[in-house]
């Protein structure tokens, strides 16, 4: 199964700052196992552009509207056997310790 890992900051003040795993090791390890399909750090929300079409008209605006302190700072797409493996991958990501990781499974579209 493919999972999208949203790498997020967290407003929870009590983060675990001891023995935080190394991101380079995490990337190298999951690349070597062929588990990491793609991933990147994302530019901050200030660089974001929101695009909508309403009644056929293109609406472009600066940044996201929601004033939120929890921000997606990066993502990784991982290929895992099941959720337990995905959780194991996520728990060794440094941001799981300093922020949070949201795991979202890809939806298998039916092929006919």
């Amino acid at each position, binding site marked *: *199964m493919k999972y999208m890992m949203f790498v997020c900051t967290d407003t929870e003040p009590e983060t675990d700052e001891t023995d935080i795993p190394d991101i380079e090791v995490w990337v190298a390890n999951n690349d070597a196992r062929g588990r990491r399909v793609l991933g990147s750090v994302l530019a901050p929300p200030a660089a974001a552009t929101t695009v909508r079409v309403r009644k056929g008209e293109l609406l472009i605006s600066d940044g996201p509207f929601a004033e939120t302190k929890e921000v997606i700072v990066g993502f990784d797409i991982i290929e895992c056997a*099941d*959720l*337990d493996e995905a959780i194991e991958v996520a728990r060794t990501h440094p941001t799981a310790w300093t922020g949070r990781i949201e795991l979202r*499974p890809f939806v298998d579209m039916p092929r006919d």
Partner: protein
Amino acid sequence: MTDPRTAVAAAGADSYARIVAALIRVTGDWTLAEDCAQEALTQALERWPSDGVPANPGGWLMTVARNRAIDVLRRASVERRKLRELAILSVPGSSEPGLSVPGLSVPGEASSGVESEEGEVVDDRLRLIFTCCHPALALEARVALTLRTVGGVPTADIARAFLVTESTMTRRLTRAKTKIADAGIPYRVPTGPALTERLPGVLAVLYLLFTRGYNADGEPAFADEAIRLARLLARLMPEQPEVSGLLALFLFQHSRRDARRDGDGNLLTLEKQDRSRWDHAAIAEGLEVLAGAPGAGPYALQAKIAGCHATAPSSEATDWPRIATLYDQLARVQPTPVIELNRAVAHGYADGPQAGLRLLAAARAGGVLDRYMPAVAAEAELTARAGDRNRAADLFLDAAALANTEPERRALLERAHEVLGDSDE
């Protein structure tokens, strides 16, 4: 001859989880598995009265459920692989399938599990329990799903216990099953360090289930169900002392079910209960379970404490020094304010009220217990026994003001008068 209805109920209680678990393993379809198990029970109710109860009722049910699943899948024309696996799904306790499946052969080996990667045979019901109790599901969903799928409890009964409508509970169960499929929650018992991490979550679900049944406004059948599941888990995981500890704890607590209320339905504290009304068979079983699994985890320690109370001939003749020592150990593995409070009370009996008051002051230092009635009542009791009657009376009045129920409040006011009355003598 056995009454067919009784036979169906007994076979259902014994086999339902096994059938559902096996069908889920092969088809991956929770709803199909439940429907087919239910269908088998319905057919048994129709056929056993006229055909007679089969020699192997569990095997009969499994075969009917499996054939039903094959039928449904065939109509939905699923891949051949699932059908082949279904066909070789074994029937427990029989060398003969109860019904034949046209065109598909059925070997007679009796086992309801398959080998894990580590080569050990894992019972399907164990997979089912661990999947229902997966931490990626909401806690309430875990409890409800365990009741429905492992326990076979009707959705309407679960809904009543959770104070929601049946349709709400049906939606909640469906959402949980959808999450299992969509999120890729595995149908597997974790091994190694993962098992150590996950087992407490499973035990917490059983504990919640038990208290749902044990509490005054709970569904009494849930306590029995929790004990049944704990027995099953203890049988399937004999090497886990915390599982045995939890089972023993349930048995000791449950042994007091007939003695813990007075004629008006008010809860009685241990010292006021008629100990002859305790279920001594349950206590004996609890002691046996504990003896077979020496452990020092939180549930094992709580069970040992409950065992001390269960075997004491009276409140006065309780082995308080041993209970105090067990609370010392429990406070080390699970240092919560409530456990510190109970530890103080135990030392109050074992080493005198001053020792109890000192520990109680330490337990209350964090402030968490400030508005907690049992903490104030405990301080009042210890103060009374230490001889300071006026202060004790004031504390009983404070405790009464914090009481949640009218009988509790009345009992505490009575104690306030009692301690002052004693001083008049």
